């Protein structure tokens, strides 16, 4: 596909490049400001190159005020546990609904469809009261438990399993495999694209979630990255934007790097799961 440089094409490219610059501007200023000291920040906000390279000072501040490694580790633990539980719970259920005959399948489908409508924001109040009564606030359990069930996961896997040929399962049954064995060794390996797509969706959603952690965690040692950043902002009164930008940079980087490394899968995953925001 070689195209000549027509006026239309130059115009389109110019638009795309200008737009890209606008979309990248927050990142550019984040990286630039993370290296500026207070006097730089207050004098010349449009110059991108810091005059007194304060990267070390700002990053030290960011790393010492709130324990960044702890935040990131919490993020990994919480998102990892949620993802594993969601897959382990949703895959067998979706398999049963798609490939086995049982009376409850239709009612279950109705519950799943209704469940898709109910975000955590709607169930948070009674859940909070219950976890408070159980004295489970400020724990990994409270951060993970409500998300152990993903009706969206069931919905996604269900559609994927329905498209799988029955012969595959019959052959496995003839080989004497148990139903649990079929799920683990036939269904899951064949459903890998759906699992990856779901994994990306789930991790992006829960890594970014502020609402639930904000409600149930007040102890910094259980803070997830978004909540930790709020704590950092509260501790960093005033306009110390240098340190703030260093902190945002540290906290944004892991997911952005993951995205840049696997962007094709990311986009595919988000497109496939786009159904839910």
């Amino acid at each position, binding site marked *: 596909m070689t195209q000549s440089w027509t006026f239309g094409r130059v115009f389109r490219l110019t638009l795309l490049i200008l737009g890209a610059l606008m979309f990248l501007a*927050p990142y550019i200023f984040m990286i630039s400001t993370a290296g500026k000291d207070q006097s730089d920040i207050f004098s010349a906000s449009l110059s991108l190159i810091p005059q007194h390279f304060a990267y070390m000072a700002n990053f030290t501040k960011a790393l010492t005020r709130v324990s960044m490694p702890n935040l990131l580790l919490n993020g990994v633990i919480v998102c990892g546990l949620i993802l594993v539980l969601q897959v382990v719970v949703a895959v*067998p259920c979706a398999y049963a609904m798609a490939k086995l005959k049982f009376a409850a399948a239709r009612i279950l489908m109705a519950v799943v469809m209704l469940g898709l409508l109910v975000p955590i924001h709607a169930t948070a109040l009674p859940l909070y009261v219950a976890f408070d009564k159980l004295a489970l606030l400020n724990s990994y359990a409270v951060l993970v438990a409500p998300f152990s069930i993903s009706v969206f996961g069931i919905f996604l896997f269900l559609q994927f399993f329905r498209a799988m040929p029955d012969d595959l399962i019959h052959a496995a049954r003839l080989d004497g495999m148990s139903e649990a064995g079929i799920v683990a060794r036939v269904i899951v390996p064949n459903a890998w694209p759906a699992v990856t797509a779901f994994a990306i969706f789930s991790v992006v959603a829960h*890594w970014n979630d502020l609402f639930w952690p904000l409600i149930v965690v007040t102890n910094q040692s259980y803070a997830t990255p978004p909540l930790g950043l709020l704590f950092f902002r509260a501790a960093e009164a005033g306009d110390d934007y240098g340190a703030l930008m260093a902190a945002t940079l540290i906290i944004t980087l892991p997911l952005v790097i993951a995205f840049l490394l696997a962007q094709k899968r990311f986009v595919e995953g988000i497109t496939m799961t786009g159904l839910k925001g």
Partner: protein
Amino acid sequence: MSDVALPVSAIETAAWREARIAWLLASPAIVLMLLFIVLPTIAVIVLGFTDFELGYGSFRFVGLENYADLISDRTFRRSLWNTTVYTAIVTPISIALGLGIALLIESEPRGRDFFRTVYFLPVASLLVAMATVWQYLFHPSIGPLNSFLALFGIPGPNWLGASSTVLYGLSIIGIWQSVGFNMVLFMAGLTAIPRELYSAAEIDGAQSAIDRFRLVTWPMLGPTTLFVTTISVINSVKVFETVKTLTEGGPNKASEMLLFTIYQEGFVYLKVGYASAMTVVFLAILVVLMVLQYRFLDRQVHYS
């Protein structure tokens, strides 16, 4: 007799066995769905009829009192209105930009991956963190945006600090964050359009790009557009992170939005009953949006 009955009961046993295994496989999901979705949803509806407050032992049923209070609650009405304005700004602009950028990228063979990555980057970035960056960009005196405007002699507003502009500021962040998401959905929709349709349209006299868009692209994208619209509206109604991080509903409740108001009443003031009534309103909005989507879907002509 037994010769006939045996295979029937064997089939019955097999069916029963299959159902039992299905129940076993589905039971963890069923239990968790009841525990974390069905029961809490029922509970929030019931709590909406009570004066339950966390920290007080007893509560009583107050009927529709909470809902009557909501109607006259100025903060809640302000919150509903602000959420509506925010949604009315963010949704159309992020859809139009998403579609526009998807079309531009599709028509340009060079740099496709690069542009897709750049426009999608905000979707993969931590919103609370990027909101902090936007707060700096929007800063009235040291922010780059107003310094930039000053180069042209335009006095920039106090974006997030003035009640007249705070909703626009938050909307800009919302648009920036969601365009890439809409764009990839449109790109998927665009690649699903058969190429022959474009040549057919050309033979029928659709010469200009605008004609081709009007006659082929737009109608073929119908289902995608409906889909993107629903998600965008729902996501805008659910705006919370930027409000909590940057404005806390201020100044003067000018950026008070639905989820933030619920959070404030329920989890800061601990008025669980009252906040539950608000949550029911929020759920009702989501249900209405879904019903609207299905209505449209029924009426829509499919070209597949």
